[in-house]
């Protein structure tokens, strides 16, 4: 019983961690609090499902495609929509309010488009739906694949941020956007890349969600909410923290759903959020500021 919960929780947590990674990049590097994040995830999930049902393309094949598409959409969104707001705010607090309201509008725009295109019904596909036994627990293969994607992508991102020159630039912008230009960093370019990469991660997360979860066009807000809670738990802009917090939330949620009541998972998420805010608002793994 306990092993089942732990394994299922870790598998769910993998997807959450991936979701949160993209959001923490967008907020940490581009300084955009993107409330439409969950809708981007859903958009990708719907595209994967449509390609699977319409053309018979396997989700694993379409995954790189939607990732690239996500990057492109994120790039465009930043260049067209966010950049003017950044320029207008001139480094003052105005950007936060503006970006929240603008992405809030984007949320409805995408949601409305999804409702028109795919309807309000719940959608799911059966793909690699057979059980695999892990440590004596039967887990659906599609869930395991989703978990694998999360681990690979998450690890690659952590390594890239830690070791490459590109990662160094990203971390510099995340830490002090004001001083980064002094050492010759193009902050605008880095922010655009960060935002686009975050959208690409949202798309990958959406693709892996579409493999094993039932979802509807109005479920985006819940994804955004969970991703936000994880980002704050892990510390804003903290990639390893977001990974750990994502797994943690998956575990807790699965535990609450099996041991107490599936209707209380969101309440559990919020209870954790409240505890983090009261106890360590800088995040579980963040340094005191």
């Amino acid at each position, binding site marked *: 019983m306990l092993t089942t919960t732990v394994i299922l929780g870790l598998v769910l947590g993998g997807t959450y961690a991936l979701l949160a990674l993209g959001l923490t990049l967008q907020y940490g590097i581009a300084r955009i*609090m993107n*409330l439409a994040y969950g809708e981007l995830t859903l958009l990708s999930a719907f595209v994967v499902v449509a390609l699977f049902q319409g053309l018979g393309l396997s989700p694993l094949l379409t995954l790189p495609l939607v990732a690239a598409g996500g990057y492109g959409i994120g790039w465009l969104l930043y260049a067209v*929509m966010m950049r*003017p*707001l950044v320029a207008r705010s001139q480094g003052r*607090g105005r950007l*936060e*309010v*503006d970006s*929240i*309201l*603008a992405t*809030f*509008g*984007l*949320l*409805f*725009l*995408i*949601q*409305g*488009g999804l*409702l*028109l295109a795919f309807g309000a019904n719940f959608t799911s596909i059966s793909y690699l739906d057979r059980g695999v036994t892990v440590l004596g627990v039967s887990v659906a293969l599609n869930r395991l694949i989703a978990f694998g994607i999360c681990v690979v992508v998450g690890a690659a991102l952590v390594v890239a941020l830690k070791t490459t020159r590109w990662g160094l630039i990203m971390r510099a912008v995340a830490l002090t956007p004001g001083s980064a230009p002094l050492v010759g960093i193009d902050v605008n370019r880095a922010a655009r890349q960060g935002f686009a990469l975050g959208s690409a991660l949202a798309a990958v997360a959406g693709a892996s969600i579409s493999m094993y979860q039932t979802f509807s066009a109005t479920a985006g*807000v*819940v994804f*955004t*909410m969970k991703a*936000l*809670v994880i980002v*704050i738990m892990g510390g804003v802009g903290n990639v390893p923290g977001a990974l750990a917090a994502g797994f943690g939330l998956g575990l807790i949620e699965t535990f609450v759903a099996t041991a107490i*009541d599936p*209707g*209380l998972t*969101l*309440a559990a998420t*919020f209870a954790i*959020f*409240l505890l983090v*805010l*009261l106890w360590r*608002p800088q995040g579980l793994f963040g340094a005191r500021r």
Partner: protein
Amino acid sequence: MRLILPLICLAVLAVLPLHFSDYGLGLLIGAATYVTLASAWALFSGHTHYISLATVAFYGAGAYTVAVLNEVLPYPAILLCAAVIGGTLALIVGLSTLRLRGVYFVIFSFGLAELIRQLITWYEVNVTGTLGRYIFLDITTRQIYWQMLALGAATIALTAWIMRARLGLALRVIGDDETVAAHSGVNLARVKLIAFVLSSVILTLAGAITSPRYVYVEPSIVFNPTVSFLTVIMALLGGANRLWGPALGAVPLFLVFEFLSSNFPDTYPIFLGLLFIGVVFVVPDGLISAAERLTRRGQVRA
């Protein structure tokens, strides 16, 4: 003079329902409700720039309080209970988030309504075993309208008073720069908390007053998130930091959305999204400020 005009308007609005059909009266109540909600929202969020997305959490809490208590207590006592519940809820939310940066508050308010809806649903299904309640109160539609009109007028009067008082000054400084506010001796957490609780109590009362119109109440009906979003966009369109801004944005938008939701229910979210983006890019300070800027430019040229 500054007092006379609003009072005349209020008097005219108060006698309006005597000449209106039931449908017209329904529209009047809706408009009055959104004027109240948007003004109450702006009371806290307009000056501090702490965007609250939790309007319906309080509105729904008020409506649900009436649904639970309508056969137990007399009506005024129910309203009092609703106000206390709304205030307590706001205190809990405010104490845990308003000490921190604005974005935490936004995120918390983003999910608050959904959280309360799920908790009530869970409680009703598992503990009381009744999901869905009826409200049978001996209150006519006109009385609801008059109550809402009074609440709206009180909200605007309260805002006018706060804007002249020390509290309003403190709120404006917080909105401009929190560090400066702290250095000038403003107790940040306390000022924000007072304004947030005041605004939330009004939102809760608005929900309680309109609730008899629902007759049948279920968590998914009264905690409809669209109410929160409409409130925000209405206040922003008119100008959230102006006394009459929220009211100015609420009336036309309410009518537009009423028309859209009955005629084009499918494209409704797209329109809402475009409106949000349009307001942020075109009239970031609201219509009143934009109009003032236009007239000022005209004067300079002349």
